[in-house]
């Protein structure tokens, strides 16, 4: 019997705000346990939640970038559950009137384009973090309680693990370039839950779905879905039935393991949050956010390859993060030659970042520095050999390249009136080289260039010296 899979994904993004969604508690990564949480996060009597405007703004950005329809009126709801990661015993989320509905993104799998629908997206609060001890206890840190999340719920439009993978990659890239989230799975700023059911080919009605939560890499998503397809098939073929349940992926064995039998939606007893007034989202605000929306990675790619003539590979390296793409764009805007700028970014700058384990935000090199240095190379002021020295100085200390070059006498020597007499002298002093040159030994020129470089401490323009030497030798 052949089976068909139906896959839907729920992706949570931590939105990049400075404070929590309903309280002014700071949001930082890695703060000491239970120091960035307050009485509002815990819903102590007498406190009231108040919505962080920036959470809506970032959510609207993603909604626009995924072609979703933003609801003019939304409100928050309570999702009731008892679990130690949330001292309120409810999560404030948007259940009845979410931020946006009916979006889509386009993916390409095995050369075929496919549109994957987005059912809805809503903003909500994150729960605290549990650490499970081995001594029969768990330890709860509520710093994450109240961190803003955007949950993007796809339509069950995916039919195999590869499509799910492609959808995730595309969605991640889109969100990353809005700047709304860090989208780092390893730090938990992007989290993926999957729903998968299978049904015999030809059957219309969907099978019972199994949910897998908190998968921490795209690869785990793909592997756990592939495992579930097989497992459910075996259960059905053996005459069993699938239980509506939550499972988790076990990295060590590559298997999925039953975690709990799922509570139905009605068990969460959703009701409108009485502590927060409904929100009206004006078209003016949406238009304004749309205007401020950073350029999409796809438009940027188009510019890089078609406008600037970069190789697709180089364009993709630049587009690995929004930061590097922004840095490159700023360097080009400051007058840098795009091809040279891309080369410097992808080799020297990335090399430095990897060696020092830092990010673009941590270094002292600015896009303007890079542009200035590239201009100095292009107009022949410095050689590319000298440029590496200038680069090392600027990226480490933030020294202005032009000033550094001038202060240290690194300007390339291209003046014929200075170089010509030197060339004449070096040829006079080395009669053997003239002989060698006449006998067709090209090495002779290399030796003489070396002599000039030595005398000028590497500052002579090599092209110019070559040209002058050739002229001089031929005239003898």
């Amino acid at each position, binding site marked *: 019997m052949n089976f068909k899979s139906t896959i839907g994904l729920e992706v949570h993004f931590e939105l990049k*705000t*400075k*404070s929590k969604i309903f309280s*002014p*508690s*700071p*949001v930082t990564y890695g703060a*000491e*346990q*239970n*120091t*960035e*949480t*307050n*009485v509002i996060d*815990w819903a102590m009597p007498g406190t009231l939640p*108040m*919505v*962080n*405007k*920036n*959470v*809506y703004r970032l959510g609207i950005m993603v909604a626009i970038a995924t072609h979703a329809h933003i609801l003019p009126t939304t*409100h928050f709801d309570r999702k*009731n*559950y*008892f*679990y*130690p*990661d949330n001292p309120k015993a409810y999560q404030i989320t948007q259940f*009845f009137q979410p931020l946006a509905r009916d979006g889509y993104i386009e993916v390409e799998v095995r050369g075929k384009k496919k549109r994957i629908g987005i059912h809805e997206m809503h903003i909500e609060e994150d729960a605290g973090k*549990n*650490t*499970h*001890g081995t001594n*029969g*206890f*768990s*330890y*709860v*840190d*509520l710093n994450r309680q109240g961190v803003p999340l955007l949950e993007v719920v796809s339509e069950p439009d995916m039919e195999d693990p590869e499509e799910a993978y492609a959808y995730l990659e595309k969605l991640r890239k889109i969100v990353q370039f809005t700047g709304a989230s860090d989208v780092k799975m390893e730090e938990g700023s992007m989290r993926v839950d999957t729903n998968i059911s299978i049904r015999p080919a030809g059957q219309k009605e969907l099978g019972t779905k199994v949910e897998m939560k908190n998968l921490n890499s795209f690869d785990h998503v793909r592997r756990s879905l592939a495992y579930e397809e097989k497992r459910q098939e075996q259960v059905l073929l053996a005459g069993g039935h699938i239980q509506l349940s939550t499972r988790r992926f076990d990295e060590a064995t590559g298997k999925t*393991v*039953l*975690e*709990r039998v799922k*509570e139905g939606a009605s*068990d969460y*007893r959703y009701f*409108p949050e*009485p502590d*927060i*007034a*409904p*929100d*009206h989202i004006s078209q003016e605000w949406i238009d304004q956010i749309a205007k401020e929306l950073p350029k999409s990675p796809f438009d940027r790619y188009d510019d890089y390859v078609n406008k600037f003539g970069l190789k697709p590979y180089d364009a993709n390296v630049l587009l690995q993060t929004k930061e590097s793409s922004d840095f490159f764009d700023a360097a080009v805007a400051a007058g840098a030659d795009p091809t040279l700028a891309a080369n410097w970014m992808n080799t020297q700058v990335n090399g430095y970042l990897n060696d020092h384990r830092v990010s673009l935000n941590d270094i002292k090199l600015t896009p303007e520095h890079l542009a200035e240095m590239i201009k100095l190379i292009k107009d022949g002021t410095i050689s590319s050999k000298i440029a590496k020295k200038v680069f090392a100085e600027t990226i480490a200390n933030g020294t202005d390249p032009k000033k550094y070059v001038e202060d240290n006498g690194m300007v390339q020597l291209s003046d014929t009136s200075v170089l010509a007499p030197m060339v004449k002298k070096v040829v006079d002093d080395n009669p053997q080289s003239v002989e060698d040159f006449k006998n067709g030994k090209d090495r002779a020129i290399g030796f003489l260039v070396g002599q000039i470089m030595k005398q000028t401490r590497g500052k002579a323009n090599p092209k110019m010296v070559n040209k002058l030497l050739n002229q001089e030798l031929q005239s003898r």
Partner: protein
Amino acid sequence: MEITKDTIKHVATLSRLAFNEEELDKFTDQMGSIINMADQLSEVDTEGVEETVQVVDRDTVFREDKPEHWQGQNRETLMANVPEKANGYIKVPVIINKDEDE
């Protein structure tokens, strides 16, 4: 809507509560009367009436994204009512259930 003993048992499980038989009978009765009283509202014809989710006379109340430590806050005050703690964490009975089903 009929409130049965099973309804009460189910809601109790969701709330992590345990009742004895006597309590179950009592709550089944009480909850039944409460729900039935509230149910009278369903007799009102609400055809075409928009659902009310809030009765306060304002909407769209936002705050700016400015981080702030709660004034005078320290972890000890916040965690004063936490029954068991360890090294700044809230200590609870182990949460995860590792049921292997195959």
